[in-house]
Every structure is written in structure tokens, then in C-alpha cells.
């Protein structure tokens, strides 16, 4: 991640003595070519080229398979993905001007769908959500509400999982950084979920999360003396994503734990001694020595965890298939559903492009944020 510094420092290293090496130039060039070509070819073919293809295809109506010819459609895919609009509705009133009400006393609005379908300006829009303000209803519209929902779900996942996972990892690292006999055993234990595939973990946790049989509900009910009823962890739209967050953090925290551990061990003991002389307690040492000492490590951990979190797919595919009611559909899940399962590869490509730009933007933002903090 610290690309610039590495490039610069390498230069000083490669500037060797002023020894002339001209006679060796031609054959060396060939070696450079032969030795770097395989990896460069691989990177180009399977990373750069597909990305360029995605960019190009996102302006067409390319299908994975269709007897119809592919055509340019301009920005149609992006328009469908990102176009958002709104609409204000007045409640329905009868001839006398009285507002109509349902039996529950709620106001009645014209059926949104008929309104949208009959207005050319709103033809392709669908409701994403709505709010009511004194007798008016504001409806937020999108051309692909599932995609908007997928973005929100993905952001929710990232916002929840990054602090939980990084926090857990730091906690674990501090735990196993103690000088206790047999501590390495615990390091192994905390790390073991990482070597277990996320597919396997998702399957095992599906069982633990099960509404009727699962252990979570059993413990919950035992600890609350039966007061907290069974939660349908993966079946309840409000709980499905948090459940996936918890499992994901549990599975992957081991990696970040090791990175934090290496960071902790890189902090010089002298600093702690100096802090102790200044009369700092354990908390003071943590805040004034440990945290600043872990700064670079933290930047790396947060950025890499964030990027990984944006790609959430496997857990969703195995455990919930985007449900219930789209509450766990993510950007990647939407891309695979549209681009592969529904074979609209152009649409999937447009999602991939947006996905990449978002990751790029967030990585740059995070880096700037941490750099600024350093200056301050």
C-alpha cells in the first residue's frame, strides 16, 4: 500500500557503482523481456483486459448468449443503475374535498405504479422507499431499486464489519502478546477459523443460526431465562446482515490479529519503559505508546479489510441468496445475479465498473485521511 515510498527507496538501491556495463546491454534486455513477460502477460490478460472489456461492454447490451446482435446502448446501463428521482404525492380526496382514509385512519394515496407507468418521465422508475410529511408522501424512486438496496447493504456491511473485525483483531493481538506460558496455543486457536474456508464456515454457522435448532437461540434463551424469544437470524430482514457481519468478523479476525501482533512486537520496549517512568498506567501506555506505534499497521489493516469487505459475496450466496427480501443482497451479489445468472453481461459489467471506482475512491480517501492525521 505504501507504494510511493517503496518505489523511491528502491532507486537508491539499484543505483550501483559507476561501473560501465554497456557490453552486457543487448543480451540483458532480452533477459528482462523473457523474465518479466510471463507475469506481465498474465496481469494484462486476466486483470487489465477484462477490466477494459467491462468498461467497453457496459455501454452495450451484450448478453452472455443471444441470437440478437450486440448493440451500443450508450449510458443505458448506468442510467438504470444509478438514476434516482423523487415524487411528491397528495392524498386522495373525495368530491367534497375530504381526505379519504382507510379503516385504520391512514391516508390513501394514488397507486404509485399507475402514476409512474402513465408518466413518460417516470416510466422506468420504481419505488425505493417513501416518507410521509404532513399529508404528503415523498417517494424516492430508482430505476433499479435492488441495486440501490445492494449498495446500502454493502455499505452497512463495511461499516459494521471493519470496526468489529479490526477491534477484535487488536484485542486478540493484545491478549496473545502477554508473556504467558502456552500462549502460542491460543494464537493457533484464534487463527484456526482463517484456514477454514468461508464456504465451510458459512455452512456450519447456518446451522448455529437456525431458528429452531441453532445454538445461538438456545444460549440466548438460556441466558435470558427464556425472556428473549427465538430470533430468526438469517430469516429476518433486520438480523440477516448483522448475522453475516458477526460470522465474517469471527472468521477473518485471525489474519489482522497476526498483523497487529507483528506491529506490537515492533514497538520498542524502551518506549514503554519511558512511559512507565513518566508514571503512565496500563491505559496511558496503550494510548500513548501502543496506538501511535501501531499507526502504519492500522492503516494497512483498515484499508485492506475495507476493500475485502466491499467484495462480500460468498457468505451471502451460501447462507441467504441475497434474501430475506433483498436484505443481504450486495453489489457483488447483484453483479453475479445480473451478469451471470440472468446473463445480462453488459449490466453486470457496468456494476463491476462502478464497484471498482467506488473501491478506488474509498482507498484513496482512507489513505488521505490517515495521512492528514499524521500531519496534524
Amino acid at each position, binding site marked *: 500500500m505504501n507504494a510511493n515510498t*517503496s518505489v523511491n527507496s528502491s532507486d537508491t538501491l539499484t543505483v550501483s557503482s559507476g*561501473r560501465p556495463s554497456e557490453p552486457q546491454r543487448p543480451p540483458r534486455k532480452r533477459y528482462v523481456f523473457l523474465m518479466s513477460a510471463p507475469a506481465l502477460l498474465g496481469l494484462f490478460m486476466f486483470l487489465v483486459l477484462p477490466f477494459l472489456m467491462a468498461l467497453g461492454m457496459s455501454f452495450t447490451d451484450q448478453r452472455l448468449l443471444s441470437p440478437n446482435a450486440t448493440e451500443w446502448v450508450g449510458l443505458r446501463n448506468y442510467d438504470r443503475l444509478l438514476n434516482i428521482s423523487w415524487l411528491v404525492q397528495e392524498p386522495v380526496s373525495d368530491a367534497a374535498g375530504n381526505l379519504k382514509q382507510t379503516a385504520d385512519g391512514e391516508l390513501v394515496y394514488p397507486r404509485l405504479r399507475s402514476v409512474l407507468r402513465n408518466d413518460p418521465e417516470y416510466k422506468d422508475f420504481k419505488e425505493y422507499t417513501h416518507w410521509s410529511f404532513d399529508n404528503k408522501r415523498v417517494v424516492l424512486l430508482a430505476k433499479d431499486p435492488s441495486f440501490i438496496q445492494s449498495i446500502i447493504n454493502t455499505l452497512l456491511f463495511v461499516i459494521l464489519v471493519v470496526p468489529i473485525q479490526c477491534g477484535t483483531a487488536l484485542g486478540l493481538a493484545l491478549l496473545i502478546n502477554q508473556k504467558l506460558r502456552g500462549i502460542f496455543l491460543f494464537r493457533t486457536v484464534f487463527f484456526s477459523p482463517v484456514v*477454514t474456508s468461508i*464456504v*465451510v464456515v458459512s455452512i456450519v454457522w447456518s446451522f448455529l443460526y437456525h431458528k429452531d435448532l441453532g445454538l445461538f437461540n*438456545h444460549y440466548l434463551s438460556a441466558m435470558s431465562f427464556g425472556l428473549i424469544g427465538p430470533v430468526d437470524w438469517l430469516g429476518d430482514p433486520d438480523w440477516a446482515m448483522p448475522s453475516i457481519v458477526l460470522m465474517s468478523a*469471527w472468521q477473518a479476525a485471525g489474519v489482522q490479529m497476526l498483523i497487529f501482533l507483528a506491529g506490537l512486537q515492533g514497538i520498542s520496549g524502551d518506549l514503554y519503559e519511558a512511559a512507565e517512568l513518566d508514571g503512565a498506567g496500563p491505559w496511558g501506555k496503550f494510548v500513548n505508546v501502543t496506538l501511535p506505534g501501531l499507526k502504519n499497521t492500522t492503516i*494497512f489493516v483498515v484499508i485492506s479489510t475495507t476493500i475485502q469487505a466491499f*467484495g462480500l459475496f460468498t457468505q451471502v450466496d451460501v447462507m441467504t441468496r441475497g434474501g430475506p427480501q433483498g436484505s443481504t443482497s450486495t453489489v457483488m451479489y447483484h453483479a453475479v445475479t445480473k451478469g451471470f445468472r440472468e446473463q445480462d453481461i453488459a449490466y453486470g459489467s457496468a456494476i463491476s465498473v462502478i*464497484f471498482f471506482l467506488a473501491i478506488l475512491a474509498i482507498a484513496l480517501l482512507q489513505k488521505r485521511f490517515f495521512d492528514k492525521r499524521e500531519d496534524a
Partner: protein
Amino acid sequence: MKHLRKLGAYLFLLLIGYVFLFPLLFMIMSSFKPEQVIFADLYSIRAILPVGDLTLDNYRQVFEKSDVLLYFRNSILITSATVILGLFVNSLLAFTLSRMRWSGRKYILAAVVALMIIPIEAIVVPLLLLVSKLPTIGWEQGGFVLMGSWLNSLEVQILPFVANSFFIFLFYQFFRDIPKDFDEAAELDGATPFQIYRHIIVPMSGPVFATVAILHFLLMWNQYIWPIMAVQGEDARPVMPGIQIFFGRQTSWGEIMAYASFVTLPVLAVFLAFQKKFVSSLAGAGIKG
């Protein structure tokens, strides 16, 4: 006082350890139990103990109902081929980037670093279309023929994952810090760059090769999103899509746990055997990257 604190620390570690170990132990133990026993043991400590009538029936059923061994073999082939090719290809590029001077080197290095940010997920959809159009040379009825595509093959799971910018970068960092004196001396003796790579750099770079091998191994063994798209026939199917399909059929939990254990145990075994290496690799990769 000190003893008490120590005891407290151990108790806390044990509690957290239980949280981290429970699902794995539960999976492995359940794989040896009939379904009724799994449910009976579920809410007691027996859930993670090898007690009661243990049986291999679940495993027998899994082997009968699913071609696990084939998938297992595929995963091993894919993983080992990718890792071996990757070690070679990635370290070679890193060598030219870190120890040879050539025009354009800086740009290539910057490009490699920039590519590290593209996650595989961002390109799977167009990659699918790309590989579906790439021809392979096939052998049919006594002659070479160009066959339709790479889909449903082992190579479609290997070749796209050989070159990896992150691994190139790890190699680059390690090679860069090896003192130059060795290769300069060798160069004066007329050694070619490849000889310097082969006889000087590689022997001195054991740790980074181990790191990359382990990381690449984990990455490949756990492949999921790509094979579910590019490989659907069972001939080339690896283990992770295999278990997902088995899970989707909703057969008994005992069998699912047996399947899960079977695909996990080898990795767990490798992990336990090379634990120190594993841990230092991952930590090192993080702190340097």
C-alpha cells in the same frame, strides 16, 4: 495477586478460545455422529466431544452421493499448479524489477502496485466472457482441433490466477533488500541474469517463497466465486462449489458436517504442521505491504 491475575488471564483466554474453536470442533465431532445424536448432544458440552456411538456412516454416505474425491483431486491439481507456476512467474518479474535496470521499470512497478487494488470480484463478470471466447487446443478423433472455450476446465481455474500483483510486490520488497554485492560479483564472472536469479537470489529468499506459497495456497484452495461461474461440469469442479451444491440439496446435517470436515482437515493439517511458518508469513506480509 500475581497468580490470581494469571489465572484470570487464562480463564479469559479459555473463554475466547472456546468461542473461536467451538464451530470447528462441533463440525468435526458431528461428522462422526448420526443425526439424532447430533441433535441430542447439541446443547451440552457433548456437542464438541467425541462421545457416544461414533460412526463413519456420514462419510460413507458423502462418498456415495457426491464425487468428493474427484473434486478433491481437482482442487489439489489446481492449487498446486497455480502455486508452483505463480512462485516462478511472480518472482521472475520481481527480480527484473528489483535487481535489473531497464527503461520503463518504474512505470511497470507503479502499475503492479496500482493493480493490487483491483479485487478479483471486480473483474469476474467480464473475465467470464473473455475466457468463454478463448480457444483451447483440443484433441479429438486423431487430430488437433480448436475447441470452443476454456469454460469447464482446469486451466480456466489456474491460468488467470498465476500472476498476482500482490505476490510480485512481496517478492520485490524482499529481493530489493538483498545486498547487491553478490550479483555484482557474479555478473563480473559472466553470469547471466537468470543464473543470478537461480543461484544467488532464490537460495537466499526461502522465507518470501514460503510466505507467497502459503498465501497463494489458501487463496486457491478456497476459490468459490470464480469456479461457480466458469466451471459447472463435475469433471473440473473443485471442492468449495462441491460442498455448496451438496449443502443446497438439504441432505442430513451429519453428512454435511462430514463433507465440511473432509475438505477442511487437509488445510488444517498443513496449518498445524507448518504453523510457525504460516503465522510469520501472514504477519510479515501484512506489516511489509
